[in-house]
């Protein structure tokens, strides 16, 4: 996949999809859902942040496993670059979510309530901040890569199993629990879907794009010092 970095088609696709999301997302005819009304348009900007974050974390997980199997520095660089973008999308997700919550739940910070999804992502972000601190506190490059890959795999799998798989921890204000309808019932009618799925792909590609640039910066750093990364 690292070889695909230099091809252009997916970058063009990314720009097209994002342009489509931002223009058509504001114009599209939306269903008149009680409570949500026009704010449902935030679906195109808030939810894809989380999807992109999760997809980037998954890709990073794959690279961490690859690193442990092969020991090639380039996989470690890729994993870190992807995580940086994943964390950025996580923060963006919080900001857009706070805006949405301001209109629906009454104030900017009602997310402090017990909500599985908010709690889960908050823990996730804490884990990845800790990950970066862990990386900062190991001097030796090879050891840093190895230890942080191990932590990343351990934390990601444990957290996802703990939060998602078995019983729902608490009530949630989000769709799918606590008496709120799920996506499939009425919220995502076909108009919304036509913008939502391209938006997810667009956000994910944008994340990949920026992290590929971060990756190449890291790689140049190594090559300047004549350290082989293969």
């Amino acid at each position, binding site marked *: 996949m690292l070889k695909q970095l230099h091809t252009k088609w997916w970058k063009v696709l990314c720009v097209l999809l994002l342009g489509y999301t931002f223009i058509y997302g504001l114009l599209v005819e939306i269903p008149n859902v009680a409570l949500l009304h026009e704010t449902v348009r935030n679906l195109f900007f808030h939810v894809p942040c989380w999807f992109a974050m999760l997809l980037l974390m998954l890709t990073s997980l794959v690279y961490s496993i690859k690193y442990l199997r092969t020991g090639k520095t380039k996989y470690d660089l890729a994993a870190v670059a992807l995580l940086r973008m994943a964390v950025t999308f996580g923060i963006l997700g919080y900001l857009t979510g706070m805006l949405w919550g301001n209109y629906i739940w009454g104030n900017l910070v009602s997310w402090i309530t017990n909500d599985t999804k908010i709690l889960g992502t908050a*823990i996730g972000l804490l*884990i990845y901040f800790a990950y970066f601190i862990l990386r900062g506190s190991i001097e030796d490059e090879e050891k840093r890569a190895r230890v942080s890959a191990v932590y990343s*795999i351990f934390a990601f799998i444990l957290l996802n199993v703990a939060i998602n798989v078995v*019983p729902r*921890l608490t009530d949630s204000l989000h769709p799918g629990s606590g008496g709120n309808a799920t996506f499939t019932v009425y919220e995502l009618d076909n108009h919304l879907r036509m913008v939502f799925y391209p938006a997810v792909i667009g956000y994910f590609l944008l994340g990949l794009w920026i992290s590929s640039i971060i990756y190449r910066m890291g790689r140049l750093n190594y090559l300047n010092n004549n350290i082989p990364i293969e």
Partner: protein
Amino acid sequence: MEYRNKYAISGILLYMACIVFIIFMTFGQDLRGPVWVVLFWIIMLFTAVNAVAKSFMQESAGRQLYYYTLANPRDIMLSKIIYNIFIMLFLAVIALLFYSVTSGYPIVDNASFLLSLLLGAMAFATTFSMISAIASKASNSGTLMAILSFPLLIPIIIILIRISLNAIQQNNLDINLQDLLYLAALNVMIIALAMVLFPYLWRD
């Protein structure tokens, strides 16, 4: 393996006793159910950090090398986990005794509370063993130990507190059965992950 440093265990016991005593001094006898539960798990959490953190950090580099020549990494990790589980169970029992003497014992449903104590202590021991192995590789390992492990333990603590809250309200094991099974499965998974990942940490 660590029976050598008996003073370490005594130190942890004293640490725990101090926390319990502070709680007793601040709340006196009127500690109500939910607060009792939450404080108990916080005592357990902080005791666990201090007790299990030692398992890798206190080993000198020379001794690590000695183990390295002696056994394979999976066996070492497994023995550390088993040892830490016993330590945590021991500490949990002592903490419960001391805490209930000073602050009362509001639990109605003993079966599910004690089971959650057992599984919770195991989960703390396994997670902290693995995180301790990771943190011992870095420089400021004391802080790292806490920031690496607390986020991972939040979901586990939420489940433990939920079980305990049920246990102070009614005597009914069935409603907690799903959560308890879930905790047991989580324990198995943490041990499996540690077994798979530890060999990569080990070789230096």
